[in-house]
């Protein structure tokens, strides 16, 4: 009797479950799952307009000979390799400083450093473009304090344009990452510090042997998120430098956009490039998980 009743409840509950997730499931299936699969299939096809045919590894072979692609890939990696570590270290440092319970004006500092997160990527990109123009504000300030004697061609020089994108990204995202670290730091039981102090660990030792291991999961999370973010970079490349000069700041997503809408559209080839991003996101995420896991033992 009881078993019969509970079976009925289970069936009812199961039906309700589908009811609740139904809309979400249909939408994600059509607008997330299907596009991923379709894009994967498309990456082995080529053609123009609406007619596409199987091309085997043709697109992948084309990638190797495509100098613009290679440039975009290396640009994206430069952003990733320099920007993510710099930002993570900065954010960790600031979070640690802000976590001091005796610190005054903590609310002000935290709000100020978090503030860049409220800007849209387009708005801040254009702001940075205007500040860093050759005759613009930053050059003027740097020349006034005699740090440089000639204006830096931030937007016109391949090297400085990359530096500019990295500076801009760091400005926009450091506060965001800092908030994650700060909230984790505040979740650490104060008695742990107390115990460490009694054992004679100084601030540095406390940081490296106690705080850092405890923060590892959140650092892993933020670096994986930053990796995905950097590899998908588009708004900055599009709005600060428009990929220039001579593709020196072109990101992979920006190149995909160009292949799709600027040149004769080739959806197949664009899909192949997009799977290069998927490939690297997967590899880097696995690598980061591995690195974090190894230190755990």
């Amino acid at each position, binding site marked *: 009797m009881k078993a019969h009743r509970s079976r009925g409840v289970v069936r009812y509950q199961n039906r309700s479950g589908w009811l609740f997730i139904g809309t979400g499931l249909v939408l994600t299936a059509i607008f997330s799952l299907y596009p991923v699969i379709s894009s994967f299939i498309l990456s082995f096809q080529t053609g123009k307009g609406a007619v596409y045919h199987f091309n085997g590894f043709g697109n992948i072979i084309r990638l190797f000979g495509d100098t613009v692609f290679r440039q975009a890939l290396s640009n994206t990696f430069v952003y990733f390799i320099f920007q993510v570590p710099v930002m993570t270290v900065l954010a960790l440092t600031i979070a640690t400083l802000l976590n001091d319970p005796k610190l005054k004006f903590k609310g002000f500092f935290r709000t100020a450093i978090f503030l860049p997160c409220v800007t849209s990527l387009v708005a801040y990109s254009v702001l940075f473009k205007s500040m860093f123009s050759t005759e613009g504000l930053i050059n003027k300030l740097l020349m006034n304090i005699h740090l440089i004697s000639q204006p830096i061609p931030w937007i016109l020089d391949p090297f400085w344009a990359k530096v500019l994108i990295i500076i801009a990204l760091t400005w926009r995202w450091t506060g965001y990452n800092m908030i994650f670290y700060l909230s984790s730091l505040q979740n650490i039981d104060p008695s742990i510090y107390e115990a460490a102090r009694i054992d004679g660990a100084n601030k540095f030792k406390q940081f490296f042997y106690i705080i850092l291991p405890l923060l590892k999961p959140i650092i892993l999370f933020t670096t994986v998120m930053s990796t995905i973010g950097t590899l998908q970079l588009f708004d900055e490349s599009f*709005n600060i430098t428009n990929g220039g000069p001579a593709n020196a700041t072109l990101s992979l997503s920006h190149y995909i956009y160009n292949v799709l809408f600027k040149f004769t559209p080739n959806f197949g080839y664009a899909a192949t490039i997009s799977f290069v991003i998927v490939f690297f996101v997967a590899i880097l995420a696995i690598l980061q998980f591995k690195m974090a896991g190894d230190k755990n033992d």
Partner: protein
Amino acid sequence: MTKSRTLIRNKQTHGKFQWVNAAKSAVVYIILSITSLLCIFPFIWMILGATSASRDVSSGKLSIGLELINNFNKLNELIDLPRILANTAVLTICGTIVTLVVASLAGYGFEMYKTRTREKIYNLLLLTMMVPFAAMMIPLFRIFSAAKLLNNYVAIILPMAASIFVIFYFRQSTKTFSKELIQAARMDGLNELQAFFYIYLPTMKSTYAAASIIVFMSYWNSFLWPLIVLQSNDKKTITLAISSLASSYTPDYGVIMTAIIIATLPTMILFFAMQKQFVEGMLGSVK
């Protein structure tokens, strides 16, 4: 134990230690002040820029000007500002409502009615969260162009409403929700949907507040996908307008800064009015 603690503390606040500590904390304050200034500075620049003539902005003049009204009028001549703001608001408000409804129902459903099949589906969805948008963009474009929905906000809202991130956020928050409440509601004769709307929704107000801020921001600030989908000028949103103003050969930065202020104001107000929920929403899924 307590005794040794106070001993250590006494040692730190004595003589030389006190001096070293003062110097250390001065360094901390200097570092934090400089960082704060660097973070706030572009906002000051934006405000100064909006009050200045284009020439002064381009030459990096750091002063307040008298051109604000003039810039605003010029902006109105260059773009159809009321229309663009109305577009952005319609897209953002509709999008936020649809996304919150769909995602909270799904997040609740996945957490409250766990079965092995649904867990598998959920994990599959989480996996697609790792796939960059660039990889989905092409099939999405083909879907909406086949459905003749390009240049329509539906094409922006539907893919964003299926945000796995927001579903994930609601599921994580539902974990802290007491299931006994729903059990009690069932006893009182409420059906499953009623229990959701009358019990879950009011209890989870702060979760909804935090999520709505994040979703609001993602619609208001969205760029790449609207850039692809919205092709006619009368559908453009504020980010698209700013981007096209800035990419002209002779950008008028005074005017552009005015547009940027208008675009940033809503999110800024949201941030200062609901700072706690704002930060909570950003942290969201991690907790």
